[in-house]
């Protein structure tokens, strides 16, 4: 990929012969002192806001803490509380359904769009700009905009349905359409990222592969199947894993659009975690949910790590 930042790391021998010179030890100490001086800002930020919270998350989920008295170790009590909550099952099912639906729509569509865009010789800059436009909107703005479109009375979507002679839908207010409405917003505002990443990947496919496939008599769809897809296989896999991890953390859509309703139809794990902590004041329960979500997502992250290692190899 012709990207300025994608240069391969250059390996260099570390300080040839440095250890054999007199005063080398002193210089090494000096170099380390300077280096740690340069690193201290980052070390402090990471320690407080990345590394320590990982430990705190685990501690949190095994403690009862009202932030007045000293925290008490309660074993698996927090986990028991959240698992027995009727919303728990809904939250996981909804999160899985949301991720699945977002994959069905949001995974194949950007690839198809990228393949088509890659063939077009006109309006390229316009199309690329436009497809990424929703990604640039602050998510809260995009979500609130769609909340208005979903309005069952004079909202844009029901007006369009009415215009083509279809009956109106109740979108966010019905248990059967609420979750898919969330998926539509989420897909609309994230589609551009995938499309442009695939486009970059497609442009790095050497043209002679298509040419020789054609000489061998392969038609359009066989070239797509035997050249395009194998050549972009790794990026497709990487994006799949990234998308699963990203969509499983869904929060802003239920928070702003439905508040988890109607009847828990759109409550997600991240949203339930937020509710436990900030609406019920139960950080232990929230921590327990967070830890469960973390373990599930770590599985996907581990896959991602393996795949992307293979890619750089």
């Amino acid at each position: 990929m012709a990207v300025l930042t994608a240069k391969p790391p250059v390996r260099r021998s570390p300080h040839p012969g440095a250890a054999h010179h007199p005063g080398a030890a002193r210089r090494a100490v000096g170099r380390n002192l300077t280096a740690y001086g340069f690193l201290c800002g980052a070390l402090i930020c990471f320690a407080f806001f990345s590394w320590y919270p990982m430990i705190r998350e685990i501690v949190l989920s095994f403690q009862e803490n009202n932030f007045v008295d000293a925290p008490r170790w309660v074993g698996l009590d927090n986990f028991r509380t959240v698992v027995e909550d009727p919303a728990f099952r809904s939250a996981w099912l909804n999160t899985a359904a949301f991720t699945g639906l977002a994959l069905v729509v949001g995974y194949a569509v950007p690839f198809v769009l990228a393949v088509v865009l890659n063939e077009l010789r006109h309006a390229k800059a316009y199309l690329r700009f436009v497809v990424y436009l929703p990604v640039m909107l602050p998510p809260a703005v995009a979500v609130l905009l769609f909340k208005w479109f979903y309005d069952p009375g004079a909202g844009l979507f029901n007006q369009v349905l009415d215009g083509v002679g279809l009956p109106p839908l109740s979108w966010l207010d019905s248990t059967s359409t609420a979750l898919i409405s969330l998926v539509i917003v989420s897909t609309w505002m994230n589609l551009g990222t995938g499309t442009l990443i695939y486009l970059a990947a497609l442009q790095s496919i050497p043209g002679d592969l298509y040419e020789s496939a054609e000489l061998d008599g392969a038609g359009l769809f066989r070239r797509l199947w035997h050249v395009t897809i194998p050549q972009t296989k790794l990026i497709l896999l990487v994006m799949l894993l990234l998308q699963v991890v990203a969509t499983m953390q869904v929060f802003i859509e239920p928070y702003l659009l439905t508040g988890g309703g109607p009847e828990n139809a759109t409550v997600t794990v991240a949203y339930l975690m937020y509710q436990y902590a900030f609406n019920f004041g139960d950080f232990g329960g929230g921590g327990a949910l967070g830890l469960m979500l973390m373990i599930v997502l770590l599985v996907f992250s581990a896959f991602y790590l393996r795949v992307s290692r293979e890619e750089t190899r």
Partner: protein
Amino acid sequence: MRTLVSPLSLRSWHGRLIYWTVLVAVVIGFTIAFVFPLYWMVTGALKSPDELAQIPPSFFPTSYDFGVYADAWDQLQLGVFLRNTVLYAGGAWLFTLAVDVTAAYALSKLRPFFGKVILGAMLATLMIPPMVLLLPTYLVAKDVPIFGWDLLNTPWAIWLPAAANGFFVFLLKRFFDSIPRELLEAAEIDGASPLRILWSIVLPVSRPILGVVSILSVVTVWKDFVWPLLVLPETDKMSISVGIASLSAQMPQNVLIASLVIASLPTILVFFVFQRSIMAGLTAGSLKG
């Protein structure tokens, strides 16, 4: 460049017909899907509440009353929210650059003991999705261990976590690795200090990557919702996204839509100007690991 469709088949009248049909369909489809909602937003703000509730809707507003933008600005105190967001995003940008550039330089060129371990620990944070650490990180911001500071409702609650970004350290380090050592050694022999070398040799050649990191960091903080929602609960301290969302229920529909337009202008303007860097950052992001 040769792509999936053979250039030969595009030369026949039959091929050309298909090409132009697809092109027109894609242009119209993209415009409807991605531009029309924004058109509907901008014109929706100009319609009166009565006109907004009208069925069927009017395609063009019957009157152009730009006063609604002024109303939105005053009633939602958008000025305050925008100023706050500039402060948060700008400070986060400066902090991120100062902290991550020095760290990446130290790890790439000074190579201290345990440098690899530190880099590994920073990259490991990328494997943990931010959402699952929301509660413990919030608790840290509320009561910083050792120091006991309460960072809630202060810009520090945005700035400090924003700087702890493993991906930026990784991008910068990878770029610094590609700067030839000879360039730095010459300066070292002339007696330049590491800080001096960083400032006058490394940074000038690293402009492209600094641009990518700068824009990514500003845009990330600007678009963020959940974190500012938690750590900046006071109305006067809210960022623009959180502010509009929290006041949205009390606003007349057209005023709310006008505020959405105002809130989306800055990022869209940034996109107009820095399209190249933003798209470069996007593909760099997909190659991480």
